[in-house]
């Protein structure tokens, strides 16, 4: 039987299109990755077995080794209202640029008096020192205690734009002395903020313990 001779075709596939897709995705993931917020201090958190993820749009209070407190908040929409409100209420005299820098994610680690200079600092003239937000241990009322004022403002202004009240997270260094931590926690509890999340890095549950058995039982289901 005579066979029809099929024309020989090369089995090469043009990879150009696929390559395009791969790199498009790569670019997308690289750009969409939320980078670690610019932190003025290096904080090494202790480890724990807890696995609650950090609540979204939460207020983050960073406490460094020496006990300095820093404030950062991710909710851009709320921050816009917040800095405007704070500026008016406390008469901080912030420039538009300073406000914009705050909204775009600058961590705050200065008392109100130095806020304008700190927020407009562009990294040009050497290093800037961070004294931390003052946490007056004698008075925990929002009028006197700057840290409480920051936290309360964040909660108030998030609520004012119709969103859920943000959770408060504390990210402290392992080596921070306990009294510094206690001062921050007291400042929060005195203002009836009783649910606090402590940021930790994950660690495996040690086998043979009660938590391990529960995790095993849950995994089997």
């Amino acid at each position, binding site marked *: 039987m005579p066979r029809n001779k099929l024309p020989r075709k090369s089995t*090469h596939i043009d*990879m*150009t299109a*696929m*390559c395009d897709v*791969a*790199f498009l*995705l*790569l670019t997308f*993931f*690289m750009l969409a*990755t*939320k980078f670690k917020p610019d932190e003025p201090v290096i904080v090494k*958190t*202790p*480890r*724990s*077995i*807890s*696995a*609650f*993820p*950090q*609540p979204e749009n939460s207020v983050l209070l960073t*406490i460094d080794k020496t006990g300095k407190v820093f404030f950062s908040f991710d909710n851009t929409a709320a921050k816009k209202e917040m800095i405007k409100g704070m500026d008016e209420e406390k008469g901080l005299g912030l420039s538009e640029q300073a406000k914009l820098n705050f909204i775009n994610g600058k961590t705050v680690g200065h008392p109100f008096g130095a806020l304008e200079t700190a927020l407009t600092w562009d990294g040009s003239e050497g290093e800037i020192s961070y004294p931390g937000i003052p946490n007056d241990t004698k008075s925990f009322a929002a009028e006197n205690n700057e840290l409480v004022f920051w936290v309360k403002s964040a909660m108030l202004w998030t609520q004012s734009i119709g969103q859920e009240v943000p959770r408060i*997270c504390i*990210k*402290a*260094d*392992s*080596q*921070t*002395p*306990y*009294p510094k*931590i*206690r001062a921050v*926690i007291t400042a*929060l*509890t*005195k203002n*009836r903020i*009783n*649910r*606090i*999340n*402590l*940021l*930790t*890095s*994950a660690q495996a*549950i*040690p086998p043979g*313990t*009660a*938590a*391990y058995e*529960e995790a095993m039982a849950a995994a089997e289901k």
Partner: protein
Amino acid sequence: MAEIVENKGSRKKRKKNLTRVDLTPMVDLGFLLITFFMLTTYFNEPTTMEIIMPDTGDTDQPNELKAYTALTILLNEKNEVFYYQGLKQTAEVKQTSFKSNGGLRDVIIAHKKYVNDYKQDHVGENGVESDDEASILIKPNKNSNYDNLVNSLDEMEINQISTYVLVDITEQEQNLIAQAKN
């Protein structure tokens, strides 16, 4: 895109050479990087430990702690841990550590067992009820650090202690630590 078609104007008789580049390895690399970025971003998510502090504005009398269920953990400098059972601050204070074997964890497990046994033997006497649970008081000394606090809170979770509280250390207890060290 990646093809360069040779100039046809060239008169010289040459074998037509298409400069097509094989892009397969490049695609491989691209997807490898994508996978890498996707996986690493996921793992970097920080975890949190939730603590609920007692409400300070509450005027209600806090729940009375039953003496036999209580275990007090005292945190001291250099990661030292001391503990005593019961509520009497004259109790014998013993030293332990954060080691996973023979440390605080074993102390808590032993205490849980003690509370359970005691409960079974003495139910109905002196207010001992069948739903009593081991309760732990964590009292960090002024020279302890945050790591100690998180470690001991973590032990609560590891051993599933549902009743625990963070309290200030008393002077008497500071003296007890000093005595126990000698």
